[in-house]
């Protein structure tokens, strides 16, 4: 408990309700299990799926394929749901997908101002910052200020396009392929594609910066 309280204070900027919340969630879970509404093994399976199976590596493979295969790229831009499903990434919070592509003229970034809509099927669960009122409030009114905080300096001549995910359409940013990657295969390219680059708050890694 002492460790937990310290952890909360130093790292998570949450509130003093946490021990109560912990107890409340335990109580709720045990009630729901006893009522037969939820199956404990199913709960474990849900957590395991999003902690170990569904994450931004999925999206990175989509981007790497789009960079490598012109026909796939065109399909992705035309019908992202089908093109992404062809790689096996379907379902919850990715039922209807749109791919938006960065170019020298356009930089895309994605937000959900109303809640936390995010393309789970290709990026996994959203990071805490994506769900924070700070990001949600500022991304639409001051996207360049937000991008600067993430270390991105977007030239004035580049159009910043923000996509507010207000419906069940989920947006995947296709970042620009870095220079010096001509010889790389899809797996090596996927290693360069960061989660944030697919939200639009980051850029892909450069070859040589990863082992």
């Amino acid at each position, binding site marked *: 408990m002492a460790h937990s309280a310290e952890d909360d204070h130093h790292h998570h900027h949450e509130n003093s309700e946490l021990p109560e919340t912990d107890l409340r969630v335990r109580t709720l879970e045990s009630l729901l299990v006893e009522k037969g509404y939820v199956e404990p093994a199913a709960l474990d399976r849900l957590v395991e799926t999003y902690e170990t199976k569904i994450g931004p590596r999925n999206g990175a493979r989509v981007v790497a394929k789009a960079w490598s295969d012109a026909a796939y790229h065109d399909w992705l831009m035309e019908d992202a749901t089908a093109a992404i499903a062809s790689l096996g990434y379907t379902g919850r919070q990715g039922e209807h997908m749109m791919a938006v592509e960065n170019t020298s003229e356009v930089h895309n970034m994605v937000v959900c101002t*109303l809640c936390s809509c995010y393309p789970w099927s290709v990026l996994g669960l959203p990071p805490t910052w994506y769900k924070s009122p700070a990001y949600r409030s500022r991304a639409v009114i001051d996207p360049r200020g937000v991008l600067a905080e993430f270390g991105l300096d977007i030239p004035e001549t580049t159009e910043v396009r923000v996509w507010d995910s207000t419906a069940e359409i989920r947006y995947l940013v296709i970042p620009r392929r870095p220079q010096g990657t001509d010889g790389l295969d899809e797996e090596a390219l996927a290693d360069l594609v960061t989660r944030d680059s697919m939200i639009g708050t980051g850029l892909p890694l450069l070859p040589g910066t990863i082992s």
Partner: protein
Amino acid sequence: MNGAADVGGMMGFGAISHPADEPNFHHDWERRAFAVTLAMGATASWTLDESRFARETLPPVVYYSSSYYQIWEKALEKLMLDRGLLTGRELATGIVESRKPVARTLAAEDVDKVLARGAPTERASGASARFKLGDKVRAKNMHPFTHTRLPRYLRGHVGEIVHVHGVHVFPDSNAHGKGEDPQWLYAVRFSARELWGKDRPAGDTVSADCWEPYLETV
């Protein structure tokens, strides 16, 4: 509704903390809150839109002082209390006193299948679309006390249709037990200057997905 969740364009929340390699869950209770919320969603006791409305109707002081999964947990309690699936006394004591049945439960062996299927919201189209690519439209000046997915910061502003997504379940209806009432859905692009004033960069834009009832011809 003009609730606490509708934060687009608000100020004062400060810098965005974005640590590298942050875990999905910071505490075990977050894992459990996440999982019970998804598993209860699978019982079909409410719609996704009803669950969003339960979160956005938390009083602003509660919403802003709660962490993300605290909001989920509080909304889950509310959904269950409202439907008689849980009582306040059960929550207080931890002792089960009622067992109102639910339509179905999620079995562990079905989790992969259920997640892979998801819950598509596109429906067959009946009426033809009122708008087409390139049309100029105005987001209506509307302030329903009920659920809507038209953020305040877009209302009254003129944008352009940049994508036609097809016909999708209409949250404004589906959040209130009034059926799916599917409507045409469009991506509408607004210039930053239209939304926020003349000192914004000329080319910058914000796009949002808007159902046809949110839009009117200019």
